[in-house]
């Protein structure tokens, strides 16, 4: 009985996190694609990956979009969560390098995140990395095996 409740509780947490992520990535990829020209200019001006702005500007929204599908299709949820976790680690590393190692600090990202400073952005990202990590740990074994 206790175990069952626990499983249900874990299930709920994972569900909620997946939905939050699905929303976040939908928003993030859409806002990039809707203002693609501007997004590419911003990447080109990024002190970190300016030389790769061309393909990064397409690959990032594409990955975000695929992750949303993976998270929503319960069958691929664990792959989706691992991808989410990796992508968030990458974003976080990106911000960390900008703050500590780059030769200048550019003006920030688009969308709602524009209002945040880079430090707040870093905290925001770390929280999300932890959320993804937690959900990977919590995702019930059964869930992984379920074919729906």
């Amino acid at each position, binding site marked *: 009985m206790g175990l069952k409740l626990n499983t249900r509780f874990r299930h709920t947490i994972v569900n909620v996190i997946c939905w939050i992520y699905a929303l976040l990535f939908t928003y993030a990829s859409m806002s990039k694609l809707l203002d693609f020209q501007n997004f*590419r*200019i911003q*990447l*080109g*001006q990024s*002190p*970190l*990956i*300016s*030389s*790769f*702005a*061309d393909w*990064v500007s397409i690959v990032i929204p594409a990955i975000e979009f695929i992750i949303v599908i993976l998270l929503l299709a319960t069958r691929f949820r*664990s792959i989706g969560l*691992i991808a989410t*976790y*990796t*992508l*968030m*680690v*990458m974003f976080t*590393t*990106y911000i960390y*390098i900008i703050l*500590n*190692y*780059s*030769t*200048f*600090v*550019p*003006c920030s990202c688009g969308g709602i995140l524009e209002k945040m*400073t*880079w430090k707040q952005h870093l905290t925001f990202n770390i929280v999300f990395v932890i959320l993804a*990590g937690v959900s*990977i*740990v919590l*995702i019930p*074994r059964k869930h*992984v095996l379920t074919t729906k």
Partner: protein
Amino acid sequence: MNIRIKIVVLLISSIFGIGVVIYLFKQSEKITHYQNRFIRRFPPHVAQEISQTDLKFNSYYFAGHGNGNIYLGNITAPLQILALDIALKENHVYTIELKEKDLAFRAPQIRVFKNNFYVFEGHVPYVYKGSIDNWIASKRKNSGYYFAHFEPMDSVEMVTRYIMPKSGENLIGSLNLRDTTEVHYEQHLLEKQFDGVFDTDGSLHFNKELQRVVYVYRYRNEYIVAHKNLELDYRGNTIDTISIAHVKLVRLKNSTQKTFAEPPLVVNKTSAVDSNLLYVNSGLPGNYEDENLWKAASIVDVYDLTNGTYRSSFPIYNINGETMKSMLVVGQFLYALIGEKIVSYKLLEPINQDKKASEYSGMVDG
């Protein structure tokens, strides 16, 4: 998945994610500075306008700097020199007196170098030299090849761009004011692409700090760095992709003269050198740039002459729709002639883009 496998997966994902971003960062930095694919870097606020002065005329050009002053010559008043202090607050007008007045006078120009000044005209060709203490000049040379550019390297040795008789081709050479009989020029510094006249056009500078002659081509993405004796040091590239001059010429009817068949593609409009840096006002927008910025400003690209690398770019804003005509860099100040105005910009250390942002003094940005 049991918990142990999950932890391993998390660890691998973390290492992979961090590794990829660090790798991209290192590669991107290397490409930006050493093999730039025409992606400019605009660090925020590295060039800030600090003052603006109305000169009342748009016919001024930079004649040089020294002793805390910058000197402007005026095409329509060829023997007048306007000295402005570095803050552009105070000015003095001096009138140059030439001891010998027997020469044909078309459009002489002035250069000020340390305590001397030079009045020259390439089409006659003559050179006068005098001291800025009294602004009186005497004739030092009035024969030899025609020349079109002239920059002092020290008090007697000048670097020039000669125009070869007959062919009209450009050659970089030097001119010694003590021994005016000897003409020294270097055949292979300028590289001909089709006519050796238009395709080799550009601007000539002498960099005092590095003791190097610098020539920036106008119609291709190249600059030449040479020693004082005109021996080639190296050829550098500007970040755009135009390696072959795009200039089409037609011969005028009943004349030997040629003119442009279509507007030529100007790659490097105007340039300046100071300490280890080369400043080039480019004519070509790069990838992922804001069009509006190009409508509102002239873009200056910065190169490090000691290693031929691209460092960064910054805008010099138009004034009343007028774009920058020429520029002069003295230490951390850049002066630009824009219409009838002269403006000064303060250049901050991050134009070098060689350190972490936190290590530049006084640059904290959100």
